[in-house]
């Protein structure tokens, strides 16, 4: 089956990002397809490469990046939500007149249409939030 996933909270503070990751890993293991993971609200904070979690803790951002690379999963950060919260790739950073960017590898920034499209294309839409 084809899954669309929405993640609405950032890493570490709420469990949503962990549950979503574990769900997706299990779905892939069973041979399902992940059509897209759409990060909305504080969920965009999953896409910053500047996190440095404690040595004995999981690295949530890196885990997403590795998942995207290994399984070619489309990880999309909502552009409007990302602007509000200070997540930017090089293009966004330039467009917003910023002097730095912080997006992690494996993510891309795009519009809310990507959420709707995933909702329409996927066989199942699952929302993880607070």
């Amino acid at each position, binding site marked *: 089956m084809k899954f669309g996933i*929405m993640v*609405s909270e950032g890493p570490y503070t709420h469990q949503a990002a962990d549950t979503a990751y574990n769900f997706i890993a299990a779905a892939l293991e069973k041979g399902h397809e992940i059509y897209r993971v759409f990060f*909305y*609200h504080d969920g965009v904070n999953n896409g910053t490469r500047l996190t440095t979690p404690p040595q004995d803790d999981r690295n949530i951002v890196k885990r997403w990046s590795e998942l995207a690379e290994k399984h070619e999963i489309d990880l999309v950060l909502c552009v*409007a*939500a990302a602007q509000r919260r200070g997540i930017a790739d090089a293009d966004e950073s330039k467009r917003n007149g910023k002097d730095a960017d912080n997006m992690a590898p494996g993510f891309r920034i795009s*519009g*809310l*249409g990507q*959420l*709707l*499209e995933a*909702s*329409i*294309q996927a066989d199942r*839409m699952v*929302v993880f*939030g607070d």
Partner: protein
Amino acid sequence: MEETAGEIKKIMYVNRKAPYGTIYALEALEVVLIGAAFEQDVMMIFMDDGVFQLKKEQDTKALGVKNFSPTYRALEMYDVEKIYVEKESMEVRGLTVDDLIIPVEVKSNEEVTKMMGEADVLLNF
């Protein structure tokens, strides 16, 4: 954007959170407005604290944030016409339809259950 034409899904936006205390209501509204371009069969249900989103007389001047409640009036222009409010959620909060900024269809909890059952996709905010 309409590569998805042909497939029409029943999408239900489930709005259960109050405005201003958190951003979910505002960002949910942004989804609905963008979603209109996809020409699906959409409906919005306001239940629990979500009914407060539609409260009349919101005045955010002293708070220093934007009052986004007038945007609900624009939903009609976006062809978002199926707007439901759960009866029990209003009652618990001492509200009636006269308190709401737009005309809505009032549905009982039982009817909400039925509508949820008939939707293809539920987007939760």
